[in-house]
């Protein structure tokens, strides 16, 4: 589904992604793990078009999508969420979801003045869909709340919810569980599995919670220092020498840094 070939992203002298090559299979829930600073989020950002790669290629379904802007990728069914929730803070939860679908008639300025009937019908359908999604995510009781005022975990659900407003092919989830309590995390996990099964979404998940990864993901890819170290089931990864060293190394470094 997605192939990444020898991708590099350099910031000045710092090589955040340093020659990553990986493949994401259609219909899978792929886990992406690695110690802090391994280049996971940068890799996401490059694939999703937020950052331009220094070199390398990204292929989606045989088409070269390297460096295309995010809104174009969205049109091709590639969606993503953010490590730190990027909600539209001044808008209600329902509005946050309703704005997602592309090519709404009401987004044409002309129609806002002269196509009122069409917009009204469209809006009704969108609102219904949004409410459905909110209910699915168990946050329908706060659907009129401003997104800026809800908790961090709820924002994560909202992010996930946005991907459900359209027919996505592949969804990149960046630490969707960070700062979320266990119950909510399970809810999110359930939602991901359901979407994968029922709608056939492909997922790529960055996560530090290994239980979560273990429950959802197959395969799991481990990154360190901008490169792919290993790929396999979580157990295989856990047993990999290089992986252990990578985690241990940074663990030691962390200890030194915090001392």
């Amino acid at each position, binding site marked *: 589904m997605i192939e990444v070939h020898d991708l590099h992203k350099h910031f000045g002298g710092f090589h955040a992604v340093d020659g990553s090559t990986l493949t994401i299979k259609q219909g899978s829930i792929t886990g992406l793990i690695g110690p802090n600073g391994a280049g996971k989020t940068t890799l996401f950002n490059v694939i999703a078009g937020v950052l331009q790669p220094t070199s390398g290629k990204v292929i989606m379904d045989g088409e070269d999508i390297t460096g295309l802007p*995010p809104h174009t990728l969205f049109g091709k069914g590639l969606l993503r969420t953010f490590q730190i929730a990027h909600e539209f803070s001044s808008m209600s939860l329902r509005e946050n979801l309703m704005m997602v679908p592309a090519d709404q008639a009401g987004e044409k300025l002309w129609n806002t003045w002269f196509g009122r009937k069409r917009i009204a019908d469209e809006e009704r359908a969108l609102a219904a869909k949004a409410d459905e999604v909110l209910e699915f995510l168990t946050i329908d009781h706060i659907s009129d709340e401003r997104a800026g005022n809800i908790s961090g975990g709820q924002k994560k659900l909202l992010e996930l919810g946005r991907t459900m407003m359209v027919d996505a092919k592949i969804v990149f989830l960046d630490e969707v569980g960070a700062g979320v309590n266990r119950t909510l995390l399970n809810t999110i996990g359930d939602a991901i599995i359901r979407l994968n099964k029922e709608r056939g979404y492909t997922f790529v998940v960055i996560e530090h919670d290994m239980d979560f990864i273990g429950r959802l993901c197959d395969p799991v890819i481990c990154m360190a220092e901008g490169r792919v170290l290993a790929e396999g089931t979580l157990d295989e990864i856990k047993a990999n020498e290089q992986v252990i060293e990578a985690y241990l190394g940074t663990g030691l470094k962390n200890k030194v840094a915090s001392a």
Partner: protein
Amino acid sequence: MTRRDALLFVFVGLLILVTGFAQSWNSALYILNMGLISAILALGVNLQWGLAGLFNVGIMGFVALGGLAAVITSMPANAEEWSAGGFQVLAGLLLGAGTIIAAIMAYQRLPKGRTRGLTMVAILIGGFFLFRYVFDAGVEAVEAVNPASTGYLGGLGLPVLVAWPVGGLFAAGAAWIIGKTALGLRSDYLAIATLGIAEIIISVMKNEEWLSRGVKNVVGLPRPTGVPYEIDLQNSASFVEKAAGFGLDASTASTLYVKLGYSLLFTVVLVVLLWLAQKALNSPWGRMMRAIRDNEVAAEAMGKDVTARHLQIFILGSAICGIAGAMMTTLDGQLTPTSYQPLRYTFLIWVMVIVGGSGNNFGSVLGGFLIWFLWVQVEPMGLALMGLITSGMSDGYWLKDHLIESAAHMRLLTMGVVLLLVLRFSPRGLIPER
């Protein structure tokens, strides 16, 4: 609109009414008319800032382009100037445009490298001299014709009302060019870039005499249909008779009548624009814009073409400023390029938007009226205040002298204080975004 918002509008209405009773109805109506124009300007800026978060500090330039449109649309063509060199000027301009297009094409067609750079430089330099050669001679010929009273190409001789939408188009065209080049910049940089471009527009208008007489001003623009000249009213027996019926003398009645005519025209424009803006704001389009303003990165990831939308709203807001600029020049009856100063035509408009409430169309309209009222009335109020403060001091005391002499500077001071107070205690403006 909430009840509080409505009360604020009533309050501003009262301020104007009080002006009418305490000073004169002519003053009140004039404040109302300029207030209407200010409200339209604030509406345009609010569209860019409140709805899209674009920090445009080049309002002055768009207002000036509107003024230019008023001249080019409504003044009669000067045949003598046209035959002297008008077509050569046009040819020169076409050459200039052609040079730029050729350079851009070279940039796009040729492979990256030294050849491309050199070709572009060669095209630009060659084009520049060719342009100057043709253009300068034409300009000289045009400007030599009767320089004391015309010396420019004149306009199309159309009704001045046509100039209002044309002003919008001029501003939109400029906004398109600016947006294409500068919208990718960060907010502070965009601000400075627009500030600079506005200055460039003004300096072109000041110095290109063939276009609109430059600093020598074009006076005597025609009035819109439906707005007569006072003197004609005063000479019309039937009007004087009617005025007497209201208990008014001819000169008061005629001046009020003319001002009311403008008020009516301006109100129509404001209401139409406000309706359009409100409908747009409360539609999926407005929702998308707010999403972009709240979080550009997420909006981009959700499939919204942020750059294109920014360009769209930048053009729209600027076009509204252009319309207001054309209206203002129509009201003044003349185009005076030296009068375009950033303090008045850019920063004051910003005060209006922020005090009124950015993101809320009604807020910016209110801000337009309120701040314009203060801008005009702080001056006599300042004088009165200084009179009050110094009333205890003896005549000839230097401080008294100094304070009264300085009263006029209360205007800027007050604007600053009002802006800071609102930012501090009601940071989202008097009528905040809902």
